[in-house]
């Protein structure tokens, strides 16, 4: 059963075409890597999959629901790590998460759990502006799983993480359906079962099945 089915997804901004008829399917529990150069359309595609943006045309079905119509409901089950961390610099790590707990409607206890999960328990009181880029990325990843989503959409989450990063990503992706955009082919091999490559807004070649390496 496919968790995510995108058909002919097209995104245009005026006369610029960022995505051109992309077809995509991700099975339940599957991890899909989206590869491609800068400017290929990875971020645009991921924003659409996360329901953060609406495509100009095409259909998207997530967990059997029409993503255009049921956005509110779907967002409760989707965790999105954007290209930019979007944290509040004047708030501490814990305060950042607590704020999003309120917005998500989940219990405050999740803050401590998630800080543990992403390895930031000792830095919980540090202001986000004072965190290293890697720690900020971890916090951003943690924020995406506060509400225990069934689908994770990660836009180059490995960008600032250190060597322990892939392990963290594997941990949070376990048991969830995930779409991850990355440049790093080795990471894609390690974390995902399939890859799709975007070139200038289109799917290049055929989605490849990777050997699963555990």
């Amino acid at each position, binding site marked *: 059963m496919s968790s995510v089915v995108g058909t002919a997804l097209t995104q*245009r*901004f*005026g*006369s*610029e*075409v*960022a995505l*051109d008829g992309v077809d995509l399917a991700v099975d339940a529990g599957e991890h899909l890597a989206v590869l491609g150069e*800068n*400017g*290929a*359309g*990875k*971020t*645009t595609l991921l*924003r659409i999959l996360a329901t953060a*943006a*609406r495509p*100009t045309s095409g259909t998207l079905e997530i967990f059997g629901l029409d993503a255009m119509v049921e956005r509110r409901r779907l967002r409760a089950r989707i965790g999105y790590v*954007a*290209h*930019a961390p979007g944290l509040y610099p004047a708030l501490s790590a814990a305060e950042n998460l607590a704020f999003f707990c309120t917005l998500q409607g989940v219990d405050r206890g999740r803050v401590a759990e998630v800080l543990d999960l992403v390895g930031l328990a000792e830095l919980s009181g540090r202001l986000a502006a004072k965190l290293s880029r890697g720690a900020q990325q971890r916090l951003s990843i943690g924020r995406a799983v506060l509400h225990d989503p069934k689908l994770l959409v990660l836009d180059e989450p490995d960008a600032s993480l250190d060597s322990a990063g892939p392990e963290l990503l594997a941990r949070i992706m376990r048991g969830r359906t995930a779409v991850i955009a990355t440049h790093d082919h080795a990471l894609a091999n390690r974390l995902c079962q399939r890859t799709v490559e975007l070139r*200038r*807004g*289109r799917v290049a070649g055929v989605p490849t099945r990777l050997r699963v390496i555990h």
Partner: protein
Amino acid sequence: MTSRRLETAAAAAVALMLVAAGFIFLYAPTDALQGPVQRIFYLHVSSAIAAYGCFAIVLLGGIVYLWKENATADRLARAGAVVGLVFTTVTLVMGMIWAKPIWGTFWTWDARLTSTLVLWIIYAGYLMIRRLAEPGRQAARFAAVVGIFGFIDVPVVHFSVTWWRTQHPGPVVINDALPSQMLVAFFVTMACTLFLAAVMIAIRYRIEVLIDQAAERVVLAPIIASSEAGTAR
């Protein structure tokens, strides 16, 4: 509407405006108090009414667009805004030309002039946000919101300036009851102007359709790098 019918309609509109001109200059009597300058009134007020009418179209188009995401509604709103801006400019200019000989000044901050100026600024803002926002859905959505607030704002401004004037009495706008011949000339002019406005909107709508079609006909264009550089889209 086909090109043929548009051309006929346009020709008819021009002809009707000539008819209106005839009524204004030949049929209507000269005003006793103000003299021949008063004849500006017919077109000035008709333009104002046409401008508000266009704005009503912008409002309705915007509401329908927000509700249904209907591209036609959005195009109609765009057409209404452009034509409305033209008529508002005409109203303002004619108002100033009329004001100078009558009140001795080109401008006064009474309710009507102020709200017409505000109307102009709002239309200009509408077209600006259309041009500057992300083309497509974002531009249409933002413009629709501007149109809704703008439409409500104009009567509110009018009311608040009128209220202010009750605290500070200013120049009285000449408001005589019109003799029947003038009334006739006025209604003829108004009807012809409204028809002209409708034709202009239809023509502009056609242009908007062509603009949209041209944008869609682009074959894969170079992708902007910024979609990968983290700019929110």
